[in-house]
């Protein structure tokens, strides 16, 4: 076994060992558990670097887990350009977030538990990245769900946090159910869950276009849940109840990108089905546009970023839907850098302002938190798509691909550029410029180096991640460049930025009120009403059934039928025991006569 077959396994196992050690033995030893967790993820990062420059291989030393006739599930790892890039993203952002959390969670009594869960999350996420088959991916897919649940609910004494954790988990379960059905459909035809086998036998699937489309869309359900696309997006904004490093790592950079990664991994399944592509692209475009609209009216800094994440994930899904998974992965990569940066920056502000999250309570922070301000600026420009920053490269690739496919996918995408620039500038101006609007904001200052350093590293990538990396993700499938797209994108960016700048410069409080956007299109309320309505209807129906059918007809019916029959038969009773005995005896004689003397 050479180093390139062993290292991927070590990358996967080391965070798991760290998680087990911390959760089982080291919960009382704060310093030790923190070091182990950070060490584990740092090791994973360094090993990923080695693997990144190593050779590709589809399965470094495969173990057989289930080997039955017709069902073979190996535990094997895939090392190709997709998983290599994801390895770096997950472990790289993971390492920075771990270091950052050392400061952020300093005063938290549960921090060993927190770091144990972080290690567990890294393990599960790397499992998804490295899996070489659907079954293994699905298992890790559920494990990230669990670790996300644990981390969102880290402050479990808060009702909102535990409710958000439940919501995230349950919403994901809906999508995962479809994912599982899709896997089973593919398996039922191909007879294998290994990606390479399925790709080899793709012709078995393409002969049934409808079947393939259904299977792909069911698999896509998994991505809809995990990557928080409409209509299952409701969990992500609520998941912001978790600690901010968690939001940066899980709900911006890695886990929510798992859906996109999975779709890129099985893009060979999506390619033959144009219907599935259209559905996927539509959902992506709708999410991208609507999430951006919702973001324009939010007042909580983390929620704005959460809706922004939804919108950017919409871009990636849109890219997958227009048959440009390379562009999706490219955007995933740049987005992971700048969105993790934005979240960590927001976390730094929240931390310094004693857990104040409302943007209207901040203001004037550009002088007080100088480093954070500059790092945040880099992330801000990258997200809005300012030319020359990483985000603009990847976003443009997606827009090119969408433009090539259909105007219906392109227009929402390009209009979202305007919205993105608008809501991000609003946040930026309100938080960093103007007067301090609360006492906490007057005393804010930069965090310690362990908090600022990850910001600066990420800021570097937010600026430069777009240079020279496009070819790695896109390969030879680089979409044609259209000047009109570029002009529109830059134009919308400038409009959005300028518009928000002039609207919100120097404002003391929100003066535009669009209730539809502020209340997120009432989707949560609709769901609540729908679920409550369904539940009530079900309850009323079952109550009626219980009262009239079970109780009335069956239980009471039986008893009153018995009572009625008894009442009628009572008239036959004479009340004389001997008369009964005589009749009984005569009956017996009659029976004997019938049995013996008649044939």
């Amino acid at each position, binding site marked *: 076994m050479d180093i390139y077959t062993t290292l991927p396994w070590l990358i996967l196992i080391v965070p798991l060992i760290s998680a087990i050690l911390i959760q089982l033995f080291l919960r009382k030893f704060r310093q030790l558990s923190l070091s182990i967790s950070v060490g584990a993820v740092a090791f994973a990062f360094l090993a990923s670097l080695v693997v990144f420059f190593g050779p590709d291989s589809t399965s470094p030393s495969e173990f057989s887990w289930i080997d039955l006739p017709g069902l073979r599930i190996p535990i094997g790892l895939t090392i190709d350009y997709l998983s290599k890039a994801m390895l770096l993203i997950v472990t790289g952002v993971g390492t920075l977030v771990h270091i950052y959390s050392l400061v952020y969670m300093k005063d938290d009594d549960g921090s060993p538990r927190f770091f144990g869960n972080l290690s567990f999350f890294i393990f599960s996420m790397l499992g998804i990245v490295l899996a070489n088959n659907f079954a293994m991916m699905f298992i890790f897919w559920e494990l990230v769900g669990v670790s996300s649940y644990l981390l969102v609910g880290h402050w479990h004494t808060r009702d909102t946090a535990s409710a958000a954790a439940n919501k995230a988990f349950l919403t994901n379960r809906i999508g995962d159910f479809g994912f599982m059905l899709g896997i089973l459909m593919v398996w039922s035809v191909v007879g294998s869950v290994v990606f390479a086998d399925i790709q080899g036998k793709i012709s078995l699937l393409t002969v049934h276009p409808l079947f393939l489309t259904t299977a792909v869309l069911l698999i896509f359900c998994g991505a809809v849940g995990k990557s928080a696309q409409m209509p299952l997006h409701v969990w992500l904004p609520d998941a912001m109840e978790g600690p901010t490093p968690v939001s940066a790592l899980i709900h911006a950079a890695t886990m929510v990108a798992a859906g996109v990664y999975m779709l890129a991994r099985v893009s060979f399944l999506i390619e033959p089905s144009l219907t599935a592509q259209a559905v996927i692209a539509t959902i992506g475009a709708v999410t991208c546009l609507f999430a951006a609209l919702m973001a324009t009216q939010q007042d909580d800094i983390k929620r704005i970023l959460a809706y922004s994440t939804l919108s950017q994930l919409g871009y990636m899904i849109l890219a997958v839907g227009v048959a440009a998974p390379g562009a999706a992965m490219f955007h995933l990569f740049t987005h992971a850098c700048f969105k993790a940066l934005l979240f960590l920056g927001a976390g730094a502000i929240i931390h310094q302002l004693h857990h104040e999250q409302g943007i209207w309570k901040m203001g004037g922070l550009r002088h007080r938190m100088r480093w954070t301000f500059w790092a945040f600026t880099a992330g801000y420009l990258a997200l809005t798509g300012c030319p020359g920053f990483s985000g603009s490269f990847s976003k443009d690739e997606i827009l090119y691909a969408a433009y090539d496919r259909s105007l219906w996918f392109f227009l929402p995408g390009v209009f979202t550029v305007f919205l993105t620039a608008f809501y991000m500038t609003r946040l930026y101006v309100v938080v960093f410029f103007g007067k301090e609007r609360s006492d906490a904001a007057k005393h804010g200052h930069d965090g310690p180096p362990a908090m600022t350093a990850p910001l600066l590293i990420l800021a570097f990538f937010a600026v430069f991640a777009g240079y020279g990396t496009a070819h790695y993700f896109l390969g030879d499938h680089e979409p044609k460049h259209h000047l009109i797209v570029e002009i529109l994108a830059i134009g919308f960016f400038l409009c959005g930025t300028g518009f928000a700048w002039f609207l919100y410069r120097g404002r003391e409080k929100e003066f535009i009120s669009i209730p539809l956007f502020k209340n997120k299109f009432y989707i949560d309320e609709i769901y609540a009403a729908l679920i409550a309505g369904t539940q009530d209807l079900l309850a009323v129906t079952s109550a009626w059934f219980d009262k009239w059918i079970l109780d009335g007809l069956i239980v009471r019916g039986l008893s009153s039928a018995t009572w009625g029959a008894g009442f009628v038969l009572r008239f036959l009773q004479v009340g004389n025991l001997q008369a009964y005995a*005589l009749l009984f005896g005569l009956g017996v004689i009659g029976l004997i006569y019938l049995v013996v003397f008649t044939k």
Partner: protein
Amino acid sequence: MQLTLNHYLFVGGLIFAIGFAGVMLRRNILIIFMCLELMLNAANLTLVAFSRFNLTADGLPNYNAQVLVFFIITVAAAEVAVGLAIIVALFRVRQTTHVDDISSLKF
């Protein structure tokens, strides 16, 4: 005088008739109960008599009948246990064992 099957059947029939008459005519439930036992034992007697007088080919009594007798004894014992318990319970409630007083099922 040689005892034949007929003698036994006659005695059996007589006991059965006494029992039957008791069941039909007496009004005390305990007596009725004892008469029922008499009828069962009359049946037992005839079964044993048939067993004794219908020998099989190798000169042995027909044991089928005797097995049946044991069944009847067992059932009768169970019946006595249940029946007496019912009578005692009935007496506790009604303070009587007279069948004419027990007619609440009648409308």
